[in-house]
């Protein structure tokens, strides 16, 4: 009652807000004016544990909750790493087998990264840190009776915080080794972090000895891979040289997790209530997860303990304290149609551009550049485009007797197909222009990718002085004839050449796309058989090398050429080695160069070797370099600082919102139209009259009878 009385003065304002709110506003009255960002997610996140999550749709959340040691500079391009929680970039020492420091250009057995943390960084409020008056943890051990009464995480009323320490980063690396956590990175990192495999085995053995999900003190295991030097300093030791390791340090896998959280969540009864680290994150980031209902809404709220962090220089908002938005509300929106309509009503601050709404939002100018339609401009909507750090390709199985191998016959056949498959047309028809034709394995913006004339794939394109031009079909026919298939027939047997494309696409929506492929092959008089299958069978075929041609793509983990070129590295092939080289391409010259560039720093020497590697794969053509996808993003004029940064996962803290402008636009765009309701009621009333008349007539007729 007392709390109700306290709210009494606010009632007039609430009433006014309720009256002035459009009735179709899906949010609480008055909220649109506040410092809140409205967004949506289409797929519920599976994992929010930073050791386990490896998906873009999950990084949207945990990237803003957890703080790895490094981050990508928000504005600088090409992408540059900078300290996030560190005082400076990590210092790397190279060591020999005896642990003695050696020169970087000599034989190196180990690399040791030393990281020094900024003092004073604190965790979000969380019950794992809550303390009793005597200093013992409030909720550890948890009274089962008390836990039985707790249904929602917010019912842990007492929370606490503590300072972030180097031990928390070390603890998370130990968690990567815990087989119960099931980190997807464990298998990969076993080759790098010293002692990780032994640690993993030891934890696994320990886990078998008692209740599987109980708390195991990970810090008591011997682990030479990570050393906590002091409260703020830790060292990570990896095998050999791996300069790309610093990029991993910017990913949530290497974000800190407090030991208290693991201790808290591993208590009996917690998992049954979905109280797990995989579900309720604990971080030091700009936001914390205030509401976790993946069936409806995910609410990120400003972390009250967030450390000093300022907008970077070179921008009108430079020097402003971050974060600039108090809350970010992600609503579940599975379908494109309602998402798009709500964006146009102003109830979402940003949107992608789906194929359904493309023509309504975008027009392609005479110069081929995309622009907003007049309707979108009138609404003050803004468009950002960027080439994603991904590639998409049509791969040839290099183990296939017809298309694979490095012999001249197969190479020329692949080159002919590379020319014949007109991906400019594909991008225009199926992507609404949202892509750049591929010239090699490296997308633009990645070190090593060249632009202009130097960047074209000379096997497929020529340079007309201004832009790349696809070679004429006659060149493809010539190569096909040289490969031994003049007119699409095997010169030795006279049989028509039939090729097979394996794809996961099926159904009516894929038909036009697959028909396009058939048409492209038919231009060379080659018959294409499309073998559509489900995800599982497709993966199985790829692992066994049973596919002849396939479509595949790669989304960069980090902006380094190594992260793309390793997809063509021989020892990384899928068949036999279960690697990511789906084409099973193996060229000793390429492999030798790869082993060199993966240990080099960016510079002219590395660029020269990358040029050589790109030249080799263009000539060998294990892939048809299809396209680099472009992302189109729309946002309303009241959202600021939404410059695309495709590598950063912690962009929310830079966003700024003009809530008053948003509320005014929402009001303007959503005035209710009541006349159809009045008309419907009038029609209903009018319809009753003939029914009543018929009834009276019916009664009279019955009486007469």
């Amino acid at each position, binding site marked *: 009652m007392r709390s109700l009385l306290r709210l009494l003065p606010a009632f007039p304002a609430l009433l006014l807000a309720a009256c002035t709110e459009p009735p179709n506003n899906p949010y609480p009255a008055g909220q649109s004016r506040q410092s809140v960002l409205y967004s949506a997610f289409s797929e519920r996140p599976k994992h929010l544990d930073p050791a386990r999550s490896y998906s873009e749709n999950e990084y949207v959340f945990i990237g803003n909750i957890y703080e790895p040691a490094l981050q990508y500079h928000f504005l600088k391009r090409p992408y540059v790493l900078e300290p996030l929680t560190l005082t400076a970039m990590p210092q790397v020492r190279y060591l020999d087998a005896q642990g003695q420091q050696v020169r970087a250009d000599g034989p190196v057995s180990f690399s040791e990264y030393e990281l020094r943390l900024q003092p004073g960084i604190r965790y979000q409020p969380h019950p794992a840190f809550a303390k009793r008056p005597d200093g013992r943890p409030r909720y550890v051990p948890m009274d089962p009776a008390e836990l039985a009464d707790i249904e929602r995480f917010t019912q842990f009323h007492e929370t606490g915080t503590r300072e972030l320490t180097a031990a928390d980063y070390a603890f998370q690396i130990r968690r990567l080794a815990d087989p119960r956590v099931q980190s997807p990175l464990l298998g990969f990192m076993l080759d790098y972090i010293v002692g990780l495999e032994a640690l993993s085995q030891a934890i696994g053995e320990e886990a078998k000895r008692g209740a599987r999900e109980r708390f195991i003190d990970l810090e008591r295991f011997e682990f030479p891979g990570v050393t906590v030097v002091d409260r703020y300093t830790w060292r990570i030791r990896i095998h050999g040289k791996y300069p790309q390791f610093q990029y991993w340090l910017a990913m949530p896998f290497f974000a800190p997790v407090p030991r208290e959280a693991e201790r808290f969540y591993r208590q009996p009864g917690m998992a049954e209530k979905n109280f797990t680290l995989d579900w309720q994150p604990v971080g030091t980031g700009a936001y914390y997860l205030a509401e976790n209902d993946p069936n*409806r809404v995910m609410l990120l709220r400003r972390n009250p303990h967030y450390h000093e962090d300022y907008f970077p220089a070179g921008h009108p908002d430079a020097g402003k304290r971050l974060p600039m938005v108090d809350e970010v509300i992600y609503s579940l929106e*599975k379908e494109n149609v309602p998402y798009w309509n709500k964006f146009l009503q102003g109830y979402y601050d940003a949107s992608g551009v789906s194929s359904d709404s493309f023509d309504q939002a975008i027009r392609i100018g005479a110069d081929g550049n995309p622009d907003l339609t007049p309707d979108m401009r009138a609404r003050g909507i803004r468009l950002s485009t960027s080439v994603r750090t991904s590639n998409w390709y049509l791969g040839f199985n290099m183990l296939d007797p017809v298309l694979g191998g490095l012999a001249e016959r197969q190479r020329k056949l692949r080159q002919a197909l590379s020319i014949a498959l007109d991906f400019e047309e594909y991008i225009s028809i199926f992507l609404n222009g949202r892509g750049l034709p591929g010239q090699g394995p490296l997308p633009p913006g990645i070190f090593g990718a060249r632009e202009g004339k130097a960047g074209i794939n000379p096997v497929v394109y020529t340079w007309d002085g201004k832009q790349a031009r696809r070679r004429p079909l006659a060149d493809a026919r010539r190569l096909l004839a040289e490969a031994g298939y003049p007119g699409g027939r095997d010169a030795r047997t006279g049989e028509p050449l039939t090729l097979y494309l394996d794809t996961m696409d099926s159904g009516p929506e894929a038909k036009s796309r697959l028909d396009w492929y058939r048409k492209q092959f038919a231009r060379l008089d080659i018959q294409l058989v499309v073998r559509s299958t489900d995800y*599982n069978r497709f993966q199985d075929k790829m692992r066994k090398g049973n596919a002849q041609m396939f479509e595949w793509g790669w989304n960069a983990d980090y902006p380094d050429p190594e992260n793309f070129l390793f997809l063509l590295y021989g020892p990384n092939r899928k068949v036999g080695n279960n690697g990511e080289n789906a084409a099973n391409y193996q060229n000793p010259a390429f492999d030798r160069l790869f082993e060199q560039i993966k240990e080099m720093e960016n510079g002219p020497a590395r660029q020269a070797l990358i040029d050589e590697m790109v030249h080799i794969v263009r000539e060998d053509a294990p892939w048809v370099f299809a396209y680099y996808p472009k992302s189109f993003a729309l946002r309303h004029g009241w959202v600021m600082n939404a410059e695309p940064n495709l590598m950063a996962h912690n962009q929310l803290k830079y966003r700024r919102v003009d809530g008053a402008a948003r509320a005014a636009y929402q009001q303007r765009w959503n005035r209710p139209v009541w006349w159809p309701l009045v008309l419907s009621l009038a029609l209903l009333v009018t319809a009753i009259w003939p029914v009543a008349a018929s009834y009276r007539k019916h*009664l009279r007729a019955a009486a007469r009878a």
Partner: protein
Amino acid sequence: MLDYLVRRLLYALPILLGVNLLTFALFFMVNTPDDMARIHLGVKRVTPQAIEAWKAEHGYDRPLFINTQATGVDQVTDTLFVDKSLGLFAFDFGMADDGRDIAREIKTRMWPSLAIALPTFLVGLLCYVSFALLLTFFRGSALDRGGVILCVALMSISGLFYVIGGQYLMGKLWHWFPISGWQPGLDAWKFLVMPVVVGLVAGIGDSTRFYRALFLEEMGKDYVRTARAKGLSDLRVLFRHVLGNAMIPILTGVVVVIPRLFLGSLIIESFFGIPGLGSYTIDAIQAQDFAIVRSMVFLGSVLYIVGLVLTDISYTLVDPRVRLE
């Protein structure tokens, strides 16, 4: 009656066992435990060791039905089927493969589903039966013919059209209700009206025609002629006698649906952003989360059986001639 119920419950056990067996066989015919592990671990950098670890962690490293490595009874009991099935019969659904508690998820999601399905069902039943009675009353007239044509027209339109059309008119064009979304508690009403109206309109065509056909069949029977001969008004005959005697076929269609209202509607919930159970099974099939799939199939079977038993019981309430023995 008690004997009958006990017998029906005993019949239910082999049915549920069979359904469960079929679910296992069909699921693992399409997916292998390795596939499931890959789906859950992601597509990047997954090693064979990680796959084996995932399978061991979730108990999928055991044989499906027969364990040839074991001896004695263990050959049958130390299998995936027995391990994953026993809990179901105690309604212990366990954890989903992504680590979430399934029972909790069902409990949370069934309320929004019910909030949509129950008013749609009750108001719909009232509207459809009333409309069908109206058409029956005016049978053979222009009103009846117009009503039937309207029903056939409404039946011919895809359900998705009603959803998108409803959102376009009531949400986008006239701005009466939010296009999609959900708020818990009393705030839910403004998210409920549009899907309920859409559900009602989408169901008018076939339901009205079905009930009209039932009523017309009853109208031709002797007891109706007798009632008329006794001088009862048409309205009284219709509401008192025809409706009463048509209750058995109505109940056959209606009561069996009630338990399944918990399970929600995929399209309505997906388009209107309702956090119900409608998409839970489909999402689980796509994610190859077998724990959810088998739980939801089992729950669906149980609810269906409960629905049939309730239907039988309801017969005794509306028709004194029916006895459950």
